[in-house]
């Protein structure tokens, strides 16, 4: 079997829409184009019916009631709505929020904005495995704490946080619990009641649906979560999110959720096998490679590896027919390497040497073998021209060396 290049192995960034999703969406562009808020004619009724069907499909995937799903433009908006909405609504009760250093920027930057407005935020550290400490979480909670927001699975290292335990602590202390579940929903079992989650952000395009549509799960009972809207207007979505609903996107989102619910069990087993195959091959072909974050508590389709003594961007250049991403600063606009990897205490040099592999619905064994073989070649070649590899082989301890860093 010949493989088609370039190979896509960046499923954490986004996923292609499943053809079944696209098929479900198509009639809603032209035939059933109505505004779901139009109450007086069949065009509106059809659109509303489609939206309610999707709402149910998404609720079913996460064990929620359809009424608890609020549609948004994507998970960034969902995160903003959850945090800012709680912060404003519960201001009288307190001004303290607890989150974690490895959260997505949609959480971190939202919290930073609130800090400017007089809120206090605790950023819990993570251990080397990428997980927070439950004792540190408990110790951080005070009578002013109104929200805990901890992601379910990390977008870079795929590490899964102890969500059920966090949910139990939040419940016991009477603090609301939000989780950015973007990377987890549709990939691993996620049930809002088992996990005692009060709010959860989800995104369609991470689960083979279209871009530009997401949702926030907002619990209605035990407790009933109230949110101040951050977008004002026609009072759509029970007043929590105004704006005409993206009906086609929502229909696609619903279909994507339905497919994930049906196929997740078999798909995750298949992807875990592929991921382990990739990992085994790389470990057989190369020395001094390190998995970033917990292996045990990890999404089945994620692998994040640091290839010591080799810089990430030069690695990507050598595998330019493979789409993956690197934690190296050189690949992005910022000058700092990945803050997630730095938080693990890996050291900046290993952060610069990392690659994130994200497998997905259309990943094949042939692709995995191709990528592994190519990487082994490139890493070997780059190590031959790496002064760090040479020094390490001479027995020099790189961490104690004096580096000339001024001006860089």
């Amino acid at each position: 079997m010949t493989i088609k290049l370039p190979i896509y192995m960046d499923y954490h960034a986004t996923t292609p829409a499943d053809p079944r999703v696209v098929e479900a969406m198509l009639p809603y562009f032209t035939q059933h184009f109505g505004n779901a808020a139009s109450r007086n004619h069949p065009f509106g009724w059809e659109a509303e019916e489609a939206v309610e069907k999707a709402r149910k499909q998404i609720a079913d995937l996460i064990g929620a009631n359809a009424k608890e799903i609020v549609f948004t433009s994507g998970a960034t908006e969902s995160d903003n709505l959850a945090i800012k909405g709680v912060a404003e609504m519960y201001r009288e009760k307190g001004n303290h929020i607890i989150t974690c250093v490895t959260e997505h920027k949609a959480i971190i930057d939202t919290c930073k904005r609130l800090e400017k407005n007089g809120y206090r935020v605790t950023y819990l550290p993570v251990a080397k495995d990428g997980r927070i400490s439950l004792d540190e979480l408990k110790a951080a909670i005070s009578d002013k704490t109104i929200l805990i927001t901890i992601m379910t699975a990390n977008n870079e290292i795929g590490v899964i946080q102890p969500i059920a335990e966090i949910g139990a602590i939040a419940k016991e202390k009477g603090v609301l619990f939000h989780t950015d579940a973007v990377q987890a929903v549709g990939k691993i079992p996620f049930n809002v009641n088992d996990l005692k989650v009060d709010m959860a952000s989800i995104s369609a395009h991470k689960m083979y649906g279209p871009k530009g549509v997401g949702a926030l799960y907002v619990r209605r009972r035990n407790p009933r979560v109230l949110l101040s809207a951050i977008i004002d207007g026609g009072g759509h979505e029970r007043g929590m999110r105004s704006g005409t609903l993206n009906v086609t996107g929502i229909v696609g989102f619903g279909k994507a959720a339905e497919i994930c619910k049906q196929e997740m069990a078999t798909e995750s087993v298949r992807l875990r096998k592929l991921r382990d195959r990739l990992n085994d091959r790389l470990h057989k072909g190369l020395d001094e490679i390190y998995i970033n974050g917990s292996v045990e508590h990890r999404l089945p389709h994620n692998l994040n590896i640091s290839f010591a003594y080799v810089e990430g961007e030069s690695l990507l250049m050598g595998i330019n027919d493979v789409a993956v991403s690197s934690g190296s600063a050189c690949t992005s606009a910022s000058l700092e390497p990945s803050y997630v990897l730095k938080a693990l205490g890996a050291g900046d040099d290993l952060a610069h040497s990392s690659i994130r592999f994200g497998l997905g619905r259309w990943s094949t064994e042939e692709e995995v073998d191709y990528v592994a073989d190519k990487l082994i070649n490139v890493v070997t070649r780059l190590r031959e021209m790496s002064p760090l590899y040479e020094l390490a082989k001479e027995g020099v301890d790189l961490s104690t060396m004096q580096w000339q860093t001024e001006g860089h």
Partner: protein
Amino acid sequence: MAYSNKVIDHYENPRNVGSLSKEDPNVGTGLVGAPECGDVMKLQVKVNPATGVIDDAKFKTFGCGSAIASSSLATEWLKGKTVDEALAIKNTDIVSELSLPPVKIHCSVLAEDAIKAAISDYKKKQAATGKPAEKAAQPTA
């Protein structure tokens, strides 16, 4: 990020990768940058004591494609130049030869630093050993 053809060529076919003996009094070694910044360059020159001309140059680089290309190009340019001519190589020459974008200018700066560090190391070694070669270059008293 789009790379210029010259950067890609140096990345795929780097010139003069390797190491010269650090113990050789005619070899100057420069090691600049830091792993936590994402680039480290080692550049070495071997100077002919009789003529003061750089006979050989080698490099090893940990860094992005532009850093590898900058140091590879530097070794190409160094060969055949006198020590003083080598010191005249400017990072801007490297930027224009490789068409480096603004975010990659630091790679060329690092290459210039590596050249200067290698030559300064060579000069230090020569001064320490008081090599006759250095004196021979001076007019006899």
